[in-house]
């Protein structure tokens, strides 16, 4: 029997097969590090007198805590500053390459890996961050780990793991104009639920997936974790190779040819069998938004806020009641009538150049509505520079949006960019959890196109409403 893409990558990294209940020992090709989930891991190494086994397979950046304005000044919050300074000290002590605040290559960890060409097909990639699944867009096996595992990878460059089950997400058909990768993944999560992918690695396949750019594929793989899956993958193809070619860390010359030969084998065999399969038709998709407090609580923008009484499952009904109370929404309200205070364009989900281009296209010639604040936060300083070279920053600032420096920003309430209690956002990020964007803040997850249209109208909208 043939193998799936995930099984091929797994098998190529087994250092040692586990016996009986014992897990396999898996080799890790690339370890991404940031300031939040690493300090206790470095401390653990020091306590045990251990070194970093492969600093040359490790790279660090500052993203979660960093402010996105005044980046030439010291970080105002002393606790955030300590965490960032701790990372700097640790990287120096253990010999790890770091892209600190202000550096040309600084940015969100999941934006800079692909951008530098460090994320390549067939690799294993880990980071102490659940959105590491992003890198699966290149046909890599990439997943988030906890701090104990960060320490384990630093010390051994391996992880003991049991193989994941495999799930195919088959997306047939063709996306209509105005419908994006974000709408695909929000629809997938609404369909299989936030626990639907638990224990699985998802492989996104089919005509609609093959037609996507690398940026769009990253958006999809990024939110695999919101469906409960640690990893999501897409088989590498000409689009992948085109993206990689010439990047700073991409193979060159004879190495490029050898790499291509290997990468072309990274496809699920025709006779391989998935443990589960899910079907989705891209033709039927429309812009999708969330109404609740978990990413599975989403609906097409044309729908209304659901009535909890309509949920057959008691757990889901209870969850919907709590979500509507938190979100301060009435059942039956058209989603298009929901007013927002803030629009956030950015994050590891939608902070890449293509996302900025798409939003700028919608915003051009319009103004951000009165009473609405729009934050545009590039995923990396490179993305910021590229956008400025194209004049996108002008489009945003002329529309009345704020043009910021790179970081995780308002995706999570950890830096100065936060919602105030009771404020409501349309956000291109990945989590609408209670308080995720700031204590008491309310989040609607949307695509960059919906974010831009919403900024103009002040209520949840798609570009066709303009």
């Amino acid at each position, binding site marked *: 029997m043939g193998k799936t893409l995930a099984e091929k990558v797994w098998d190529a990294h087994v250092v040692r097969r586990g016996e009986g209940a014992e897990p396999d020992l898996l080799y890790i090709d690339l370890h991404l590090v940031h300031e939040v989930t690493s300090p206790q891991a470095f401390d653990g190494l020091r306590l045990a007198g251990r070194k970093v086994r492969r600093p040359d397979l490790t790279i660090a950046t500052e993203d979660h805590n960093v402010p996105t304005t005044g980046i030439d000044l010291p970080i105002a919050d002393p*606790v955030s500053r300590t965490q960032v300074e701790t990372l700097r000290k640790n990287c120096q002590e253990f010999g790890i390459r770091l892209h600190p605040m202000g550096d040309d290559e600084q940015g969100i960890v999941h934006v800079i890996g692909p951008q530098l060409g460090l994320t390549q097909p067939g690799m294993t990639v880990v980071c102490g961050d659940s959105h590491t699944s992003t890198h699966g867009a290149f046909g890599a096996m990439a997943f988030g780990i906890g701090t104990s595992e960060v320490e384990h990878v630093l010390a051994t460059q391996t992880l003991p793991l049991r193989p994941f089950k495999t799930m195919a997400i088959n997306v047939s058909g063709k996306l209509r104009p105005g419908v994006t990768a974000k709408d695909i993944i929000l629809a997938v999560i609404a369909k299989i639920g936030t626990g639907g992918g638990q224990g699985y690695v998802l492989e996104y396949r089919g005509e609609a997936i093959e037609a996507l750019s690398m940026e769009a594929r990253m958006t999809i793989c990024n939110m695999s974790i919101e469906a409960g899956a640690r990893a999501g993958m897409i088989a590498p193809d000409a689009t992948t190779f085109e993206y990689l070619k010439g990047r700073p*860390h991409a193979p060159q010359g004879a190495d490029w040819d050898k*790499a291509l030969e290997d990468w072309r084998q990274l496809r699920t065999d025709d006779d391989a069998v998935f443990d589960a399969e899910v079907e989705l038709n891209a033709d039927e998709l429309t812009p999708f938004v969330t109404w609740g407090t978990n990413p599975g609580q989403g609906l097409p923008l044309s729908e209304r806020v659901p009535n909890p009484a309509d949920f057959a499952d008691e757990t889901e009904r209870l969850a919907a009641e709590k979500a509507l109370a938190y979100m301060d929404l009435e059942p039956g309200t058209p989603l298009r009538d929901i007013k927002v205070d803030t629009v956030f364009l950015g994050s590891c989900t939608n902070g890449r150049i293509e996302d900025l281009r798409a939003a700028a296209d919608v915003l051009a010639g319009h103004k951000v509505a009165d009473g609405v604040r729009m934050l545009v936060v590039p995923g990396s300083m490179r993305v910021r520079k590229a956008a400025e070279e194209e004049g996108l920053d002008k489009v945003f600032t002329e529309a009345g949006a704020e043009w910021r420096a790179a970081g995780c920003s308002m995706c999570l*309430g*950890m830096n100065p960019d936060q919602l105030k209690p009771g404020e409501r956002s349309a956000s291109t990020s990945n989590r609408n959890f*209670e308080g995720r964007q700031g204590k008491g803040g309310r989040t609607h997850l949307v695509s960059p196109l919906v974010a831009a249209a919403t900024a103009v109208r002040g209520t949840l909208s798609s570009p066709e409403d303009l």
Partner: protein
Amino acid sequence: MEPFSKHTGVGVPLRRSNVDTDQIIPAVYLKRVTRTGFEDGLFAAWRGDESFVLNQEPFRNGSVLVAGPDFGTGSSREHAVWALMDYGFRVVISSRFADIFRGNAGKQGLVTAQCTQADVEQLWKLLENEPGAEVTVDLSEKTVQCKDFVTTFDIDDYTRWRLLEGLDDIALTLRHEDAISAFEATRPSYKPVTIAR
């Protein structure tokens, strides 16, 4: 890591599904660089509410959390496990755990006992009818007991063995250092490095 075999403590019914790690500990509490002291961030948003279960007297000193399905979804932050343990929890019971949370718990000695949702409902009823009732979790037997109610739970055998023995993963892996070096020697030359060696 302390070995874990059996634990008895006050059960805490948490009637919520999809308790994500942002609820267990909001990001603003993740800025510390130490490994202890995270108990103040545990369920921070909910603890401001007088009616929240951990603000009720007999539950305040709980050590066995009984939660709804999909516990620990979201962010990979191990701080969620540290916060639960720093507060005093030794066991979480749920019908479904998020993968990363479950992995993190296993590294730190927090037992994630997976029961059926029917068993969780039964435990909720018992704990709500008699606040302060104790729950006994026996890892070697894989059983949960509360009053006269006894049921079994699932946990993978390898994690169970490590928890029973209190073993450190890194030391276990380093027994295979030769195999790691041998594997490294076979890596293709085109694979990237972040710095020149």
